[in-house]
């Protein structure tokens, strides 16, 4: 179980959010909804341990999650806005590097996002939607309890959305948690909405 306990984040002098509480239990999906600038992406980065908290804490199974950053990093996958692909490497080479960090089979992960036929193509030749699918393939590499997704469906076509839905269903059926920021409906059933307002 992941809990954000009264967390606050500042950027410069500006408060992005304060006193925020959020909890996610195994198998649950939370969808972050809010206007641009409400701090959805920042909250996801906080939960990943990439942003310094001004106050509050993030708990994993009731214990301080960020006390051991390596252990926290090992239990989550973060899908950011940027796809984190190297244009000079092929789709398979891009994925193979992450597979060496996290384990898993790159071939099967490419299959799961329908990119297997394009495995040997350099990432710079892929379309925006295909690049997004390649970034999503990182999620399919190996099981991991927590997925933090920043607008996972951007640029995806209907068939890819369905594949994303399958990935998400399988992840949650195995007790995985999902926190996703989005502006459009995601292929997630029984998702809890969490509304965020722009801080004054």
């Amino acid at each position, binding site marked *: 179980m992941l809990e954000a306990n009264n967390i606050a984040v500042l950027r410069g002098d500006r408060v992005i959010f304060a006193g925020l509480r959020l909890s996610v239990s195994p198998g649950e999906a939370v969808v972050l909804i809010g206007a641009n600038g409400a701090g959805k992406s920042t909250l996801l*980065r906080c939960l*990943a*341990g*990439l942003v*310094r908290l001004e106050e509050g804490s993030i708990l994993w199974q009731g214990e301080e999650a960020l006390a051991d*950053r*390596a252990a926290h*990093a*090992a239990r*989550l*996958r*973060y899908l*950011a*806005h*940027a*796809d*984190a*692909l*190297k244009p*000079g*490497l092929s789709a398979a*080479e891009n994925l193979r*590097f*992450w597979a*060496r*960090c*996290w384990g898993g089979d790159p071939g099967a992960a490419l299959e799961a996002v329908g990119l297997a036929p394009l495995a040997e193509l350099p990432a710079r030749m892929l379309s925006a939607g295909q690049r997004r699918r390649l970034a999503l393939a*990182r999620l399919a590499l190996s099981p991991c309890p927590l997925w933090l997704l920043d607008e996972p469906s951007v640029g995806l076509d209907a068939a890819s959305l369905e594949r994303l839905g399958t990935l998400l269903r399988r992840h949650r059926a195995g007790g995985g948690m999902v926190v996703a920021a989005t502006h459009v409906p995601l292929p997630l059933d029984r998702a809890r909405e969490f509304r965020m307002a722009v801080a004054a």
Partner: protein
Amino acid sequence: MIALLQRELLLAARHPADTLAAVLFFLLVTALFPFGVGPAPDALARLAPGALTAAALLAALLPLDRLFGAEAEDGSLDQLLLSGLSGMQIAGAKAAAHWLTTAGPLLLAVPVAGAMLNLPVEAWPVAMLALGLATLFLSLLGTMAAALTLGARRGGVLLPLLVLPLAIPAVIFGAAAIEAAAGSVSPRPFLLLLGALVAAALPLAPLAAGAALRAE
């Protein structure tokens, strides 16, 4: 960490222009000296050790501002920080990759540059060794500076200003080693001093760079 190093080397192999640019820069800078001071062999040989060291360090500086910049822009840095590698390991792999891909080819160009500056052939092996150590020191310092200036506006300008003053000892001992070898004196003490610089920077620079990456 090995996986990251291998990825860096693969990327460098896919984009050989970056490596080639540093080598050509090194050769062009050393080629400018004969034009500036005139082709008198004695004057050039007198100048060669310092000119080679300074040119090699400047050339190795070129790719540094993209070292973490490219990773931060395409989102890879966040993923790397979540990959299970510590900041120190990421910085260590980056420094090693920078040295292998920039300094390695640079050292192969040393005989060409040495010949242009009338450096005695006996001094070439020592020149390669001294520049190898000096560039390793620079790779370590540069990785630290690249991590510190990441996200700063005009980071590309700030980086040489941070690194070059710290690299002065490497220039002194590097040039002294080459000069000793050219004058048939033992370059050993200078090479050992260069080695000491590298030994000091080897644990400290990645540690500082790793902390700077985390603080981003």
